[in-house]
């Protein structure tokens, strides 16, 4: 009986040894190295103004507009944004030349930056211009981050008059590519 007992104990011990385990060296400190670097694209602004909204006797005309722009209100976004690229495209099918000024305004309506884009008058052929990418890094990015409003100034150069029957549109579209680093 005693032998049986010893035997069963040794069997238990033998089986228990199977349950002893090992583990590879793990390093949980690595979580500190986590660094997300997502790149997002988003619309920045667009408009589509028909010639009929720009009725004009042929002289120079200026059309202003200001819109609220709250993208940088979020601290998380501001703090982790490292670079921004803005792309602009203008498609003009109106028989007048234009200059579009984009103004970055801060909360006090101070102009932080002005970017100008010129497009010639429509002459019957495709009149789409893609402008070189505006890259915001360093001090220029810091100015961008203070932006709370976007100002648009459309200046129509002198040319043939426009009336209710004039055709064509001035189309503007712009997209932003934002580079974030989240650590």
């Amino acid at each position, binding site marked *: 009986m005693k032998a049986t007992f010893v035997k069963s104990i040794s069997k238990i011990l033998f*089986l228990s040894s199977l*349950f002893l385990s*090992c583990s*590879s060296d*793990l390093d949980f400190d690595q979580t500190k190295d986590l660094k997300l670097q997502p790149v997002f694209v988003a619309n*920045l602004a667009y408009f589509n103004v028909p010639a009929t909204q720009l009725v004009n006797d042929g002289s120079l005309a200026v059309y202003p507009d200001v819109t609220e722009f709250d993208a940088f*209100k979020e601290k998380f976004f501001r703090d982790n944004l490292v670079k921004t690229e803005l*792309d602009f495209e203008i498609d003009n099918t109106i028989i007048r030349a234009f200059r579009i000024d984009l103004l970055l305004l801060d909360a006090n309506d101070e102009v932080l930056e002005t970017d100008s884009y010129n497009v010639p008058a429509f002459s019957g052929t495709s009149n789409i211009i893609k402008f070189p990418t505006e890259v915001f890094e360093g001090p220029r990015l810091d100015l961008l981050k203070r932006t709370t409003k976007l100002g648009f100034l459309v200046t129509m150069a002198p040319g043939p008059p426009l009336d209710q029957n004039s055709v064509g549109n001035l189309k503007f*579209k*712009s997209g932003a590519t934002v580079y974030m680093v989240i650590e």
Partner: protein
Amino acid sequence: MRKLYLILIVAFQLFGFAQNKEVLYNFTSIPQSSLVNPGADVSYKFYFGIPVLSGVSANLGSSSFSAYDLFANNGVDFNDKVRNIINNSSSKDKTHVNQQLELFSGGFRVGGRDSQSYISFGAYQEFDFLMYVPKDLAILALDGNRDHIGRAFNLADLNVRAEVLSVFHVGFHKKLSEKLVLGGRAKLYSSGANATSIKNSGFIYTGQNAVTPNVYEQIIASNLELKTSGIATFTKDEYEGSIPKDIAHNTFFNGSLGFGIDAGLTYYFKDNLQFTASIVDLGFINHTKDLETRSYKGTYNYQGANPSFDPINEPGDIFDDFENAIPRETSYNKYTTWRPTKFYSSIQYSFGESRSNDDCNCKGKVTTSYANAVGGQLFIMSMPVEPFVALTAFYKRNIFENLDVKATYTFDPYSNKNIGLGISGTLGKLNMYLLVDNVLEYKDVSKANSIAFQFGFNFVFQNSED
């Protein structure tokens, strides 16, 4: 710091195999086997578990990655590891932790000396956590949307539930004849803390189409909801208590209550051919305490700024629009959660008559006992995305009168080479058991996709010993 590592390692080891207790199931020399089949053919005059030590179990499971994949100290950049795991996971992959601790348990035979009716009871504490890999959202966080134009990131990938509860139960089983054992158990659940976010839907889409007036087409359709009970208090600024202490108190004394049942049977086609089936935790919890539900519901089409050059019809602020389109709402409604219901079934063939140490059979009844048993088991458990199904083959052997071993081989979503081992021995009246799952993984637990173990101590008093 070392202590923290240890806690983390243990926490990871605690993840488990979807609560499939395939080694315990129908291991009838362990009284706790009636917790996975209240109709198990368990018999005793009476038993009681050693408080807090009668049933300790923990399971860790992660279907698409192991602790090693994420934390290996091998010089590979952590971000690359995260990216690899996300790339190799699908939104059906999940991480699951289940831990149970039996606080007390006991059982006794009712009726006369020859009665075969038993009542058992007990209480245990349970922690359950289930999260699916939020693959689409992880990719969005890692890459952003620039390289995924035309893709809709699925918000339904956000799928998580967590609960701490205590369970008080009373069961009854009766051997109606030599062929049939029937049993049932009633359970009172008390949930101390619950967080449920399992019915999300929606998407984040960025497309590009030359004919649209804008550069991108950007739509966020969101139907996100997180329901919590027993947690809202802790998120308030003025809260100054101890969270673990308060959760423990709520779990036992001030929880949201629920009710559930277990039912099961054992049927002998022949002396050595046995069939069993059981259903466990068919029940619900009605969450009524300290409720808070947060939701983000709505659709937003992001256009960017749109000057009209028309001073009369000025468009509004673009971000105000977002908050109006997908408002963050908080409500305090009661809600009901269903317990993860488990279904087990087995078929067992026994062979090889065992030698008995008894000198004589004084009762004059002739019962054959077998030394070996082989068979198969099926396990199904309800889960939010799709049910968890596991198939097990097992071999059970009675080595000595008081020592039983069981070996299992299980196919499940976490592993197709899951070998489990269990032993149950009795010294005098002390029953001890140790059940371990996925033994092959113990040579390096950090690489295991799932690990589970259970052990406990009981005092069992049998008829023949009076």
